[in-house]
């Protein structure tokens, strides 16, 4: 693949291996390789560099098929062309257990704080041990107010309280942290739908963003997660966390292809600054590195 030789039959299985090992998944891999093979035949691409280029273009095309609008991370500061939703910009963060929701919320809250926006976070994970304390530590570090009740409280009540408090004091951004939950658990997904209804009732048009956090080390199950969370609460964007490991996050392609959901952000570490807006070119390039 790194060579500049002629295209051989071995090249196609080599590309297939590369994509599968990057967690792109079998059916997406087959679709991508067939597409490139057809193009190579049509355009008489005979060298490996040309094939590699064609594959990268096919992958970018797949990613850009997902509704890519400029990542909000690029416009945390409201402007005429990118006004913050009024009266309150509400972001709901969801995902399965341990993927990085709470840490990712801290990173986002930090971005909005640094842009001078009055940012509040709601500790709506009232189940897991020390989930509230974890968010409180982060809130302190980034200068965001944390709205919390006691462990075991109704998440809907915490969210209601947070919304009321934000509206009353005219806060600008509210980010809601929810408990990790497996998408296969009916009652937990129903709980999440209820939280979304509470939000919609209090602030018309909210939540303006529903961010699904996905762990980059996840395999094919990421697609099932994206499907189920989208069905339940209409995911508007993905935060791909833990991309600083060796996993390539290849299931992003299957998610783009099947659900059209854009990746908004990537998490690149455990510190508050370890976040970046999603850059499709860089993502595809890294997969081949």
């Amino acid at each position: 693949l790194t060579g500049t030789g002629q295209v051989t039959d071995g090249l196609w299985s080599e590309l297939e291996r590369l994509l599968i090992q990057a967690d792109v998944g079998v059916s997406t891999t087959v679709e991508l390789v067939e597409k490139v093979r057809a193009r190579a035949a049509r355009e008489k691409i005979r060298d490996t560099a040309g094939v590699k280029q064609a594959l990268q273009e096919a992958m970018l095309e797949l990613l850009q098929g997902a509704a890519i609008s400029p990542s909000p991370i690029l416009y945390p500061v409201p402007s005429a062309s990118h006004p913050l939703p009024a009266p309150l910009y509400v972001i709901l963060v969801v995902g399965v257990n341990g993927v990085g929701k709470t840490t990712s919320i801290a990173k986002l809250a930090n971005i909005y704080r640094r842009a001078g926006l009055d940012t509040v976070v709601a500790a709506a994970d009232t189940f897991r041990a020390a989930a509230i304390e974890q968010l409180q530590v982060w809130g302190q570090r980034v200068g965001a107010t944390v709205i919390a009740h006691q462990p075991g409280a109704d998440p809907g009540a915490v969210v209601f309280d947070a919304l009321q408090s934000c509206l009353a004091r005219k806060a600008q951004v509210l980010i809601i942290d929810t408990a990790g939950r497996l998408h296969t658990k009916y009652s937990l997904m129903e709980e999440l739908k209820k939280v979304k209804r509470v939000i919609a009732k209090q602030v018309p048009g909210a939540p303006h963003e529903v961010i699904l956090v996905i762990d980059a080390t996840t395999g094919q199950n990421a697609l099932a997660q994206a499907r189920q969370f989208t069905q339940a609460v209409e995911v508007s964007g993905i935060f791909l966390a833990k991309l600083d490991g060796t996993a390539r996050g290849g299931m992003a392609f299957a998610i783009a292809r099947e659900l059209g959901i854009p990746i908004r952000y990537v998490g690149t570490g455990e510190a508050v600054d370890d976040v970046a807006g999603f850059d499709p070119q860089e993502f595809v390039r890294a997969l081949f590195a």
Partner: protein
Amino acid sequence: SLSERLQGVFQKLRGKGVLREADVDEALREVRLALLEADVNFKVVRDFLLRVRARAVGTEVLSSLTPAQAVVKIVNEELIATLGGGLSKISLSGSPTVVMLVGLQGSGKTTTAAKLAWQLRKAGQRPLLVAADVRRPAAIQQLLTLGKQLDIPVYSEGSQVPPPQICANAAKRAREMAYSVVILDTAGRLHVDDEMMAELERVRARTSPGEVLLVADAMTGQEAVRVAEEFHRRVGLTGLILTKVDGDARGGAALSIRAVTGVPIKYIGVGEKTDALEPFHPERLASRILG
């Protein structure tokens, strides 16, 4: 399901007899797809299928089975043989035995530490939990809360003391107070973070654990191999705990990890509550991986 897909492959085979190469290869193409879709590592799939092929070609098909069933039976047996084996219990050898939990960020170590402590106490042991994660916000608080809920003591020295020191002191305290098992909850870390892996080596050096268990998420993809290999190389694993098996991830990572490190799978995490830890059954995971 795999059996259904394979039925199509063998439609053309008339009667029973012996499994021929061409038929086996065609069947294994379907098996390969099933395993890759289950997140089994690419290379592990290749090696596994070579073994299956060697066993399958030339085998007599029992009159009670179709050729498709014969191949699935061999795949299933080989899968169970690979997944199972090895000591499936925690070996309680020292006094106290130190059990070290390691793994990537968010895999379920802290929750599993509490679950394990609870299980061991039910079995008559006297466990001590050790808060060795000084990095993650409120990690110590998380373990303290769990310990309090279960009425299991938690050893902590706050977040300013280096973890190897905390763990060494905890082991010493455990000996003095006659605890029988010491469970070290370490911070999640990347297998490629040299400093953090070195810290783990220091923890091991200072506590001589009887068990070093990799806590791995059932939804882990292709990288499971590299992660497990690196943890095994640096710290020396003695077992694997697969978590979040209560989801619908096929769990192929378990096969990959077992195949490359050879460490036995000891437990599976099947929920968020403290009683959600079960002994590992290779048959169940095998059929889940095959789909």
